[in-house]
């Protein structure tokens, strides 16, 4: 403690490192708690990977011996605490294990799918920010105008309409009726991969997802801007005789966008976990598809791996949000 205090007083740069270390140290028990809870819950789900793999018809031709043999081979006969301990031991060594469904290494499975998820999610997020920032600010500056109402109605509609409906409607209209875009997939199979083809496949899922993400962002930005607009320093800036564009652009906007950091940072883990429904409807080979098939197949190690990754991402992005916050807002200090 004494040393820490000493370091803190000597060099302020250490403050960030110190803060980071402490936050990371706190997150370890949190992560263990999360994995333990998930492990218990996924194992409480009725049925097991063996019954998930085969139909009643198949089970009845294979006989009870096969089922018992598979359970043994998959290690399902061991008591739950033992299985959790074994899993944890391997994870600490950096081994996420093998899928119970196809016996492939989970690290490889995730590596194959994180790319497509990144591609979709970052496009959607960028789109969301590009839409939300100007629209939210305009909406706040012209509060109670026709534009403001229109934006509000749009935002609430986009929040209220489920993504799967938007997705299906988009496929029906833009793909089947108008024929502008392919219905689903990431590339046209059987043709060499080109940028144009990839983009055409990306448009619909990214837009559907981007709109859904943009809607709450618009609301955040609007209310944040409204709040900032009434701050004394904005009044002061105006009183100084600054042009309105400078008042808004230089003084209000910067402060209004601070909450955006938190919102965006906290949406990262959710986006990287993949959105099951959008990925499924657009046959997108990403993390969401992996997650849903793992749950349906009671593929415990895969569920655990995805869960762990999401948990780590949540911890990290919270941390990131706090760090960025402190960096851009001098009122915030590491404590």
């Amino acid at each position, binding site marked *: 403690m004494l040393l820490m205090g000493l370091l803190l007083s000597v060099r302020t740069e250490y403050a960030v490192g110190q803060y980071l270390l402490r936050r990371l140290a706190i997150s370890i028990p949190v992560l263990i708690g999360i994995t333990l809870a998930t492990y218990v819950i996924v194992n409480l789900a*009725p049925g097991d990977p063996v019954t998930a793999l*085969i139909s009643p018809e198949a089970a009845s031709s294979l006989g009870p011996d096969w089922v018992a043999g598979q359970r043994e081979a998959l290690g399902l006969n061991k008591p739950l605490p033992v299985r959790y301990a074994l899993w944890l031991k391997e994870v600490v060594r950096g081994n996420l294990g093998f899928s119970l469904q196809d016996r492939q290494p989970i690290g490889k499975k995730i590596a194959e799918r994180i790319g497509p998820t990144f591609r979709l999610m970052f496009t959607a997020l960028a789109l969301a920010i590009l839409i939300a920032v100007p629209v939210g600010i305009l909406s706040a500056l012209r509060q109670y105008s026709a534009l403001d109402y229109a934006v509000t109605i749009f935002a609430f509609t986009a929040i209220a309409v489920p993504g799967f409906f938007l997705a299906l409607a988009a496929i029906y209209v833009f793909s089947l009726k108008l024929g502008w875009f392919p219905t*689903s997939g990431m590339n046209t199979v059987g043709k060499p991969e080109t940028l144009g083809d990839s983009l055409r496949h990306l448009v619909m899922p990214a837009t559907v997802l981007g709109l859904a993400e943009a809607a709450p962002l618009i609301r955040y930005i609007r209310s944040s801007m409204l709040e900032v607009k009434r701050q004394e320093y904005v009044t002061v800036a105006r009183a100084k005789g600054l042009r309105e564009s400078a008042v808004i652009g230089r003084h209000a906007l910067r402060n209004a966008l601070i909450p955006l950091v938190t919102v965006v940072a906290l949406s990262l883990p959710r986006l990287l976990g993949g959105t099951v429904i959008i990925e*499924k409807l657009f046959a997108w080979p990403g993390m969401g598809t992996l997650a849903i098939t793992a749950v349906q197949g009671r593929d415990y190690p895969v569920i655990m791996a995805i869960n762990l990754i999401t948990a780590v991402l949540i911890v990290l992005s919270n941390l990131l949000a706090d760090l960025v916050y402190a960096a851009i807002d001098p009122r915030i200090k590491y404590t």
Partner: protein
Amino acid sequence: MRDSDDRTTVQDTRGMRRRHFLAGAATVAGGAILAACGGDTVPTATTAASSAGATKPAASAATTASTASTTTAPTTAPAAASAAAPTTAPAAGAASSVVASAAPAASGATGGQISIYWTKPSTIHPLFSTAGIEQGVERQMFGALMRMNDKLEPVPDLIEKYDSSADAKVWTFTLKKGLKFSDGMPLTAKDVVFTFERAIDKRTGSYWRSRLLIIDGAADFGDQKTDKIKGIEMPDDLTVKMTLTTADGVWLQTISDFAGLCILPMHILKDTAPDQMQKAPFSFAPTPTAGAFIYSDWKADQYLEIKRNETYTAGPKAKLDKIFCKVLTQQDVGIAQLEKGEIDLMVVPVTEADRLRKNATLTVTSTPAPSVSFLALNIDRPFFKDKRVRQAMMYAIDRESIVKEILKGEATVVNSTIIGPEWMGTPDGLQAYKYDTSKAKQLLKDANWSASQKVALMYTPGDKINDALVPILQQQFKDAGIALDLFTVDSPEYNRRAVTGATPQAAGDFDIALVGGGVFRQDPNVSAKYFETVSFTPAGANYGHYTNPMVDDLFKQGRSTTDKAMRKQIYTKLAQIINDEVPWIYLWSPNSIHAYNKRLVGFKPPSYATHLVWNAEEWSVTK
């Protein structure tokens, strides 16, 4: 979600059955093509393999194939000499010898590619695949001793001929000459033996193991008590002789099940320990193989790409350059892609059939599926013990209207599970159980059914037909005086409750289960697996643990003879009993609907709906 038809299995049909071998190839002048042989006269001759030249579409109906004069003369084939003379043999206890080769040569130009609807594979390794949709593709890639044709009959694939001993205990398979894996290494009897050894080895954990244990010495080998399977011998490089522990008239069906037991390349896999096989990279990149198509690329959750095997010698080379099996977990997505021309072929739900028929780019076929949809009743439950209750449930359901309205007429109402094959037909003397609520009420009254008795119907939601069906069942049962609760579970839990959680003493944990499956049209004996006492779950598919000594005895009789007339009599009687006893509520046998783009030429509906590519070597594309 995979439908249960994906994984139906064909084993346990122990009776001799009609074999229907197609002589695909043309013969030299005057060469007779004998197409079909009954189970009572053991199958006989067919013709030489012709690897090129013949122009008949493959596996066309026997009638067209027999017009040999219209086909061009084949190139000389090694088997010609031995193939000519049919060996007719009396029914019981006769040796059979068949030289067969479906050596089709469809018309259509070489080239082009096709995309088909596929679901997420759990593996592309034939020893571990559990879904029909995977197995069909694997057979195209690997080749098998025997494969299944579109009439549920086993036909030779990699073999030139097989023989069986008089007592159907010893089976000899002779491989075609000059078979090669795609890396140029020869495929010999050694590879066949290796495949059987790995399949039987307990450590491998193969799906095939339990069905191959009938081979003499397989159990000991599987448990590592011996280092060779006693019942499998290799007289020479092309011949494999299998000795079974008991006579098995349906051995060919067994090894052609799951689309056929695929032959693995020993030179590649011999150093992979049995318990490492499923984990090995081969499982998702199987190469080399010896089928008409070979592995080309696998993109996780996107597609499996297979391409024409240029070194294929077991038959004419495939015409298509490539087939893409697109991983689409969502049926709606598949239909949209089909309409847009992004995929060329898929199994579609009956609810979509009419709409897709209007699409000018598509052809829609409807073929009776071998399966039956039914409500399995748990006879262990005291309230189902009275036969009159079960009969009342049959009367309570308006099956005709449901088929018409929900299944759009794409199904046939059935009153027992004895529904085929052709020689069997639908038995006479069955109660039709026409919709009659008052009769149902009367029967329930006679049986002292308590109005407060609740029964639960277990099903897996998410299937459009089932989701529409269950509320109607609930209402119609209510009209008759039966309070039905709907109980939804997902498939792992469904399987546990219905089958794997059962013990020989007690049926699974359900009252009524909505089930669809089975290959009942293959042989009447298929029903044995569902009604015999020895087939209680979890060892068989007798879900409700129905037991009746008379039924057991009739099934046994039906297996002990190959005389069709006699078998028909036996199974008719059996059908009458299970029709009257109602161990299940029989619903209907659905049709399989396939929709494909008109640019695909040569597609024929498979016997299992999901074996889409079963004759893909004959496919071509227009333009």
